[in-house]
């Protein structure tokens, strides 16, 4: 637990000092939302229906490079080898990395969500508590699998291609749950969104545990 917190603090400190992920995420998020808005050319009254899909696709595609970066950092100067020689449980390493990714992904969401509401003419404030719950559960799921496969992709050739290739099919159930839950939360409140929320929670639990157990096989040399 303390080791995981140390990893988390280390990753956040690196991010705070460079601010590379956050600035990259900001520009990328704006760009993707603009591209979606232009590509679909929705009339103002039709735009709100697009919000859940645009929001989650933008989030995933801005979030993945940020998750990937967390492991590319460890490659520089062989930091991962250093971490592995430390008396550190791989599970704790996974938990720390995962927590840092949750923070970075939450920052991504903080950029993407208000902007999506702005561009697509949706007032997000009334449904905000429920929406935050959906966003958090979706965030945890992406972080759980993203941390595991970023570690895989970082150590192969063609890693920029490989991470989305490996992650996107696995994330489909999460995206289906998140998009339906977002839509129902905004239309009808949290109670109605329960089926979607349950899928998200199941996804988080299954892959949180799987990632924690399997991470050792991925980083071991």
């Amino acid at each position, binding site marked *: 637990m303390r080791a995981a917190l140390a990893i988390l603090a280390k990753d956040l400190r690196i991010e705070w000092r460079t601010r590379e992920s956050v600035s990259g995420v900001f520009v990328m998020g704006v760009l993707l939302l603009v591209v979606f808005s232009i590509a679909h050319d929705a009339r103002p009254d039709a735009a709100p229906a697009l919000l859940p899909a645009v929001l989650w696709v933008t989030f995933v595609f801005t979030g993945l490079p940020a998750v990937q970066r967390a492991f590319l950092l460890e490659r520089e100067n062989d930091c991962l080898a250093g971490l592995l020689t430390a008396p550190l449980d791989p599970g704790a390493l996974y938990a720390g990395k995962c927590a840092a990714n949750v923070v970075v992904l939450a920052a991504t969401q903080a950029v993407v969500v208000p902007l999506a509401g702005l561009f697509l003419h949706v007032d997000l404030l009334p449904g905000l508590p429920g929406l935050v719950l959906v966003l958090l559960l979706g965030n945890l799921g992406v972080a759980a*699998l993203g941390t*595991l*496969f970023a570690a*895989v992709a970082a*150590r*192969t*050739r*063609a890693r920029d*291609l*490989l991470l989305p*290739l*490996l992650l*996107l*099919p*696995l994330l*489909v*159930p*999460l995206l*289906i*749950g998140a998009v*339906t839950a977002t839509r129902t939360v905004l239309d009808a409140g949290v109670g109605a969104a329960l*089926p*979607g929320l*349950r*899928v998200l929670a*199941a*996804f988080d639990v*299954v*892959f949180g545990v*799987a990632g924690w157990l*399997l991470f050792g*096989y*991925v980083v*071991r*040399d």
Partner: protein
Amino acid sequence: MSSATEMRRLLPAATCVTMLAALWLVFMVVPTEREMGIVQRIFYFHVASAWMAFIGFFLVAGASAVYLWNGSAGADRIAAASAEVGVLFCSLVLVTGPIWARPVWGVWWTWDPRLTMTVILWAIYASYLMLRAFGGEDDAVRRYAAVLGIVGVLDVPIIMVSVRLLRGMHPAVIARNEGGSGLVDPSMRWALAVSGLAFVLLGAWLIALRARTARLADELAMLREETG
């Protein structure tokens, strides 16, 4: 070793016999379905391929778990071979399905839960093959592939639940698909069973061949290394 050799002789023969029997049942014995017509016969190959695809994907997960457990090279080769064969049969499902769907449903493709699930599974195990292709021959890559093989199967129940959230479900279509109207004649059930067995045997044969090829390739590489 001798039982493996026997298996190697037996599997092709058994596959050929059951496959011929399946073809005979499907094209000569089974009556033509009243509503869907002749195109319904593709169903026997479609469903049989789907069974083999699922068996292949679960074999990947099983063999991957064994590989992570004891590092056996044989388990890794079986996992890789099963993924290839699983993707092959899953592709057959995705090709034969639309051929049937176009005349019966009027569209080549619809985002029905079952179709969605099949295409997602195909993508997961296609990415597994990509990982192996990009990664190359390396113990680390074998471990990564094993992790992906296990995670992929863990995804299956969640996909099954999540696709039910999709709108645009066609209950009538699913009911028809689930054999309610399709298999009225008992010979139809026989044809499906024999066809399923034929495809499973074919899949097993292909997996055995691929795993053996991989073993020979490994042995060859080892001999090359020894002789310098």
